[in-house]
């Protein structure tokens, strides 16, 4: 049988079965272009820097990947990350670091649970629900900020170590991120909960007939998504080192883009976190590239959008055939 196949069909089949390959090739190609644009840029330091910047994006994109597997989305993730970081940084001088971290993560869990309640039990569309939760949470943050303005902020050393530190040139953030990514990838493939994300996303009615109570799955999922967003906020504050009210907001839409570029379908049932990680790296390298071009901000935005559209379209063409 296989002898009759042309090399082209065999290649498309290989790509369809291993959707990570074209993504990794694309990433390598982008790095190569960067090296040509600015010879000598490729160094351990630069790679470490890129990974360091990509980690919060990839973590926030985990929220999008997992929710998109069920056909949903979490547009409150950026806001939740920002709140967690801000609450932690402002409470740390008053209460001590462990208490501050616990309270901040509790806020993230609460926001996630509100999303979950609206989406799973009231059946509000995830786009609307998470947008609404994000706006409300942002309002709460503004109110909170007026009361804590005088307390000063503290960013724990451990988070700075995780966010910015390096050991032998390798970013310390990987200490958190590698287990995190391994857990997500393992969870989506090898646990019942992971299976159910795909099941609910590809045919919720069929999942129901098989005995799945999808509200339980969705409630747990959006709560988890809130928790992941909170963790991202903590890493991000260690990287940026200044709490602000718009800390992670600029990551909101790129996190969606990273998941989409990484091959997760917004209609649910298809994709995975492995692709998202590569997608986050691709977006980070692209940003570096556009910065190097010394373009005005507007032109950079336009080019960034066009490239994301082109990459996604090409990628879907490549992997859906065969």
């Amino acid at each position, binding site marked *: 049988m*296989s002898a009759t196949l042309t090399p082209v069909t065999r290649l498309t089949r290989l790509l369809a079965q291993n959707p990570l390959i074209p993504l990794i090739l694309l990433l390598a190609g982008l790095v190569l272009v960067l090296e040509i644009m600015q010879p000598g840029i490729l160094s351990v330091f630069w790679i470490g820097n890129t990974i360091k910047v990509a980690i919060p994006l990839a973590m926030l994109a985990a929220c999008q990947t997992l929710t998109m597997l069920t056909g949903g989305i979490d547009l409150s993730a950026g806001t939740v990350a920002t709140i967690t970081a801000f609450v932690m940084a402002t409470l740390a001088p008053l209460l001590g670091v462990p208490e501050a971290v616990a309270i901040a993560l509790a806020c993230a869990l609460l926001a996630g649970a509100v999303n979950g309640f609206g989406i799973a039990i009231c059946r509000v569309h995830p786009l609307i629900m998470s947008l609404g939760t994000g706006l409300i949470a942002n309002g709460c943050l503004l109110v909170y900020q007026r009361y804590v303005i005088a307390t000063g902020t503290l960013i724990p050393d451990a988070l700075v170590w995780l966010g910015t530190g390096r050991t032998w040139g390798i970013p310390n953030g990987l200490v958190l991120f590698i287990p995190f990514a391994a857990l997500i990838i393992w969870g989506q493939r090898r646990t019942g*909960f992971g*299976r159910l994300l795909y099941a609910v996303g590809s*045919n919720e009615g069929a999942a129901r*007939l*098989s*005995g*799945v*109570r999808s509200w339980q799955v969705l409630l747990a999922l959006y709560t988890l998504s809130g928790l992941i967003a909170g963790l991202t906020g903590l890493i991000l504050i260690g990287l940026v080192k200044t709490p602000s009210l718009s800390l992670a907001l600029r990551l909101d839409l790129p996190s969606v883009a990273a998941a989409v570029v990484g091959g997760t379908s917004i209609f649910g*049932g298809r994709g995975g976190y492995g692709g998202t990680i590569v997608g986050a790296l691709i977006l980070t390298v692209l940003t570096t590239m556009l910065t190097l071009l010394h373009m005005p901000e507007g032109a950079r935005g336009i080019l960034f959008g066009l490239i994301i559209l082109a990459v996604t379209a090409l990628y879907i063409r490549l992997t859906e055939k065969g």
Partner: protein
Amino acid sequence: MTPKDTSAAASGPGAPVLDAQGVSKRFGAVVALRDASLILNRGEVVALMGANGAGKSTFVKILTGALAPDSGHVRIRGAEARVASPAEARRSGLVPVYQEPSLIPDLDVAANLRLGKTPVAAFRHWVAALGIADLRLDDLIGRLPLATLRILDLARALAAEPDVLLLDEMTAALPTDLVDRVLSVVRAQADAGRSVIYISHRFAEIARLCDRATVLRDGATVGSLAITPGVEERVVEMMLGANPPRQSAAAQAARAPRAGTPRLAVRGLAAGNRLNDVSFDLHAGEVLGVVALEGQGQDELFDVLAGNRRALAGSVAIDGQTARLRHPADAIAAGLTLVPGDRSRALLMSRSVRENIALPLVARMAKWGVIPARNEAARVSAAIDRLQIDTRAQGEVRRLSGGNQQKVTIARWIAKGVETLLLFDPPRGIDIRTKRQIYALVRDLAAQGAAVLFYTSELGEVQQACDRAVVIFNGRVVDVIEAQEASEPSLMRAAYGLTSGDAARKAAP
């Protein structure tokens, strides 16, 4: 048995209306068609037959121009007419009516007609001729029952005055009276000079309507037979490529005793506006048939028992315990598992065979943790073996043939463990080999102590699979018939509500 369809070409007057020869098509590694041919003369009705996976659907798609063949040709009206698109096929005079209605649900009838540029007067004429008296042109398509939609599709096709009409499982969802009308109208059209390609698994209809049957097996046309009395066995032989196994008489002989507490006791069940008052007992080791015309409440009955819909009145007891079925998870916990009639309702089309079969194993919250991979693999492969699912394309269920998809919906519950199986019309639109496998499986499950509630729209099958049958008419049980008395005519009379009402008491003693 000639390899090519040439014998019929010689017999027809002049050039055939449609002539397809040596058509082949492959999808990646899978060869769907090797050497398919079909000849259709003016005024002729030809049945296109083949087991699932024989390449029937692919051949139809090529004939209608939805797919381009890799080799071979399709000639319409003698001239080499390379059909490049469905629109071109339509212009060349071939109009298909597919299994799924092709009307847009959010538009009304009139708007749908305008979209297809269908002449309204002719359309109304055909709708009336086909037996739908009260159609309004401002009815929204989405609100009409499936049977009506199929009739509208056919009327629309006839209004286009086609040379060749292609009917794909036209009667699958129709009640018997409409089937009658459809067959008469189509036969009259053929006698008036139109040609028809008729795809169906129902021999009775083919015998009534068709002149010839062209049989596909493994992607090639293996022969073409004139329809004569007794041709069924020959066609089945051709489709299977060997003598089919005879229905074992032993299955009929081994009847379980019906005593003690029934596995499932249904009393006075009502739901929706169709299911009014249904009571019956189902015992372990028994296959209880449900017989009903389209829309007599059987859909609601199965949905209620599966926990997918709330009952308005009545009770369901399982092993003597009253059950509350508020969600399919409750029903599954009580051992009631549903195989719905429409397999797209049950399958995760973009997921693998394994994930589809193992879905109930991870559904409960207690099973959200690590999947016991070895145990799951063993259960799944045992279920695949038992149903003989062809797993060449197991990466995505949507790539399987219809019959194999149907098997996956059943395999799911085999892997989970069957106590009470609710099988809703499994033979609809699948080939005879798969059908026989399913009957054998159902008898096997019953012999092992499972209880099976089995709705079938094909009355001839009740005797093959069931111990008894309850007949439902207008949302009520009107009769209970033992298998040996469940001949097609007696079931038919009962299904139309023509038997005495006191028989209903036999269902629930």
